[in-house]
């Protein structure tokens, strides 16, 4: 179950890149040759994101050819401008 460890790494990576912003969605690309079960990462998403800045966010996994395992983009809630 290296998917659990990889999902934890994914959450840390996104937390670092988004610095406290509210994360709505994370888009991940998983190659068929990456040696990673996309279902297993999706399965543990809610548990791994609990009590993190990503809690309540959604994980979208695009399965691709090849062996990549990469974070494509993150969707953040817009910050309201101060009046």
């Amino acid at each position: 179950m290296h998917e659990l460890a990889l999902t934890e790494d994914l959450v840390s990576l996104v937390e670092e890149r988004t610095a406290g912003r509210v994360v709505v969605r994370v888009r991940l690309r998983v190659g068929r040759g990456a040696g990673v079960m996309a279902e297993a990462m999706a399965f543990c998403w809610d548990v791994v994101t609990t009590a993190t800045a990503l809690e309540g966010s959604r994980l979208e996994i695009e399965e691709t050819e090849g062996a990549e395992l990469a974070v494509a983009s993150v969707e953040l809630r817009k910050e309201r401008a101060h009046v």
Partner: protein
Amino acid sequence: MCDTCGCGSTARDTGEPGDASETETLTVEERLLAKNDDLAAHVRASLDARGIVALNLMSSPGAGKTSLLERTIRDLGAEICVIEGDQETSYDADRIRAAGARAVQINTGAGCHLDARMVHDALHQLDPPPGSLLVVENVGNLVCPALFDVGEHAKVVVVSVTEGDDKPVKYPHMFAAADLVVVNKTDLLPYVDLDLDRLTAQARSLRPGVRVLPLSVRTGEGLDAWYAWVASKGVRDGAAVGA
């Protein structure tokens, strides 16, 4: 249909859509394993600077990784240091120390593999001397350890004759990553149906030209070839000759 496992939902989507007008997209485009691989490169560079050769030894549980190391430590006389990975116990590190080498045990708990961070931290404790051979004995598992670079110079996969000759294609990631395939327990060949040619062909279909080295830790058959291979990586009796 099924609320908990998500089997009824659309492809690998964990649900709860957001309102698009309220969100903005941040492009990340970063490999998930980048942090591990960066740290592994750092480990490798530190080892290179001290003339230390590192092997990542992987197999299913019970293939004979620790036995191979015990015998190697006793036979080779080179300075060998070992990082042991298991979910629980320090049995293997105890065995390595009893054989006469330095060892640090990592217990991964629920974890199924070692990663670069674990090996990096263990190295601070182990402090292998310059010119030594470092062996990272990974958690017994033919799946997960294949994915994680731990800073080694070569990956060695051990398979024993009782496991059958179809393991390479059943566990393709592991065998595709192998720089050497050791086939252990050849003393048991008369009692099992293993076809060594089939195993070799399968391993080479995944890693073209990979060396397959049959040996028996118990009888010593084939060990000279193993020691010659280790020496070819830059380590020989009592002294390293540089990576």
